[in-house]
């Protein structure tokens, strides 16, 4: 019941026997990485939601661990939302009909981050709130509000948790390896689930290096050329093959002994993200706010200015690209439409630039070439390597 109702949140919102075999296995002492199963369901739930949002279909009742996503978002945003995780109160172990004395409290200080995060306050769903949160996330948290590694407890105020990414954790090799190794994680893998639902998601820790106290590189998808995402699994053997599939990255020579947790971004990542960001967030957040919340009045000056500049830029790029290809493209549409409805850049344009400049589409990019002369060619793109690649000190941007 705990698994069904509180952890994986079956969609029936009532008792089922879907999770019974998992519960039995746990009860009989069998060990399996339930935490990975949970993360698998989290990713899969968000995948399903994203698909429906793209198509404009109702989300419907998918079930799934929204509670965990809620907890994670609360913790990720706690600085912005003004939550003090240490000041929360968690229910005590008292029976439901327990009568409290005058001085007695029904709660106690939380013992760990989970207990603190789960009692944080919530909000209902309404247009105004959604649009405000949307604007915050769209524009991004300010530097002071970011909590890449929210679990900092320098004064050890939570007795039941260790100080993360410090002594206890980074000395625990197995745990740390589990956290930083890319892998396929199972979805809907409980004995009596519908066969067609069994699938998997990919866990890409390198995309989230900052959250794990490492330096952030441009993101690589290490299963992209290895296996298709979210295929249906039809037999146990098939799953074992997928689970053991090595990612397109070498994880055998990782040595954590000399590692010091430090989060930073590399110059290469900075440029990579700046370019994507420019295209992804090319309209003003306020314009979206107006779409989400029909009562929100979009200020005239903000709306017209930014998208226009941005779309002029997109337009300009598009123009160059078309001239280079000597093709006649008629730009009769408004700049706004060009920005929204065409692919942001013509890849062939850049490929050509790249080829002429760097010798091939897969050659390491400018960021490495210009500032880094020693080891760039030794770093195969899309592969891990532990030695032989050293970055120059100037490239780190500590956050």
């Amino acid at each position: 019941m705990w698994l069904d109702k509180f952890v994986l949140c079956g969609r029936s919102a009532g008792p089922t026997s879907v999770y019974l075999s998992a519960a039995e296995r746990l009860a009989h002492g069998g060990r399996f990485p339930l935490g990975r199963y949970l993360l698998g369901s989290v990713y899969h739930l968000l995948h399903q939601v994203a698909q429906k949002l793209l198509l404009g279909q109702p989300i419907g009742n998918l079930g799934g661990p929204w509670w965990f996503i809620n907890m994670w978002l609360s913790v990720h945003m706690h600085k912005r939302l003004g939550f003090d995780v240490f000041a929360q109160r968690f229910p005590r172990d008292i029976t439901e009909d327990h009568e409290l004395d005058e001085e007695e409290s029904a709660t106690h200080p939380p013992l760990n981050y989970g207990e603190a995060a789960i009692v944080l306050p919530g909000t209902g769903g309404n247009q105004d709130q959604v649009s405000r949160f949307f604007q915050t996330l769209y524009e991004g948290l300010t530097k002071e509000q970011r909590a890449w590694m929210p679990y900092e407890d320098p004064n050890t105020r939570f007795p039941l948790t260790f100080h993360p990414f410090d002594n206890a954790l980074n000395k625990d090799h197995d745990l740390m390896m589990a956290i930083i190794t890319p892998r396929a994680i199972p979805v809907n893998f409980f004995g009596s689930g519908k066969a067609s639902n069994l699938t998997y998601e990919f866990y890409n820790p390198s995309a989230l290096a900052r959250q794990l106290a490492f330096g952030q590189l441009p993101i690589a998808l290490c299963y992209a050329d290895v296996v298709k995402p979210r295929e249906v699994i039809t037999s146990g053997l098939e799953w074992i093959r997928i689970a053991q599939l090595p990612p397109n990255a070498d994880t055998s020579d990782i040595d954590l002994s000399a590692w010091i947790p430090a989060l930073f971004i590399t110059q290469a990542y900075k440029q990579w993200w700046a370019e994507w960001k420019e295209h992804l967030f090319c309209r003003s957040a306020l314009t979206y706010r107006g779409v989400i919340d029909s009562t929100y009045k979009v200020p005239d000056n903000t709306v017209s200015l930014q998208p226009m500049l941005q779309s002029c830029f997109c337009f300009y790029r598009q123009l160059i690209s078309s001239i280079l290809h000597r093709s006649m493209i008629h730009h009769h549409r408004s700049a706004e439409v060009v920005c929204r409805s065409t692919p942001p850049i013509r890849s062939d344009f850049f490929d050509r630039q790249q080829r002429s400049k760097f010798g091939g589409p897969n050659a390491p990019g400018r960021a490495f070439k210009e500032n880094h002369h020693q080891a760039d060619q030794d770093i195969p793109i899309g592969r891990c390597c532990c030695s032989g690649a050293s970055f120059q000190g100037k490239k780190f941007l500590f956050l």
Partner: protein
Amino acid sequence: MISTDQPHFQCLGPLGNPDPTDLINAETNRIPFRAENFSLDLWKDAFRSWPSPTKGWKDWFLRVSHSNEVQWGERKLDQCIRLSLADMERNESLLIAASYFWSDTLNTFVFGHGPASPTLADVLMLTDLDISTADSSHLFDTKPSSKVETRAIDGWSGYIQKYRKQDLSEKGSKQSS
């Protein structure tokens, strides 16, 4: 891992293509907010399975937790089971707003301040569930050996009424975990 010339600082590989052109072309319009389907009507039933307080659950928990504390600790279930005592408030607006930023290719949210997503470290810190055991003894094809009545018993509270009386050591504790 990719080391840096500052001896202890490490980047987490693999290193992606520093030129994001392919990603921009393939992925930009797959981030849900680009489709602008913002109607809240789409979200009507989305949170129906949100865990709500159930009468009898807390008492049941207290009864079985004493006899199972050690076992739960060993199997790394203790912290997570205990979380079910909280009557968690949903931050629905935040959940809805954040969902528009999910990239299911990267499996991250793509926020204005950069990609971010729950990781196994978050699972560990928030729930303390087991994340490192090898997944060889998969649950595939296993059939439960016992049966529970799930229909016509009036939802979760009826379920608790029905199964609470059974012996601590056998079904009560085990099915609760």
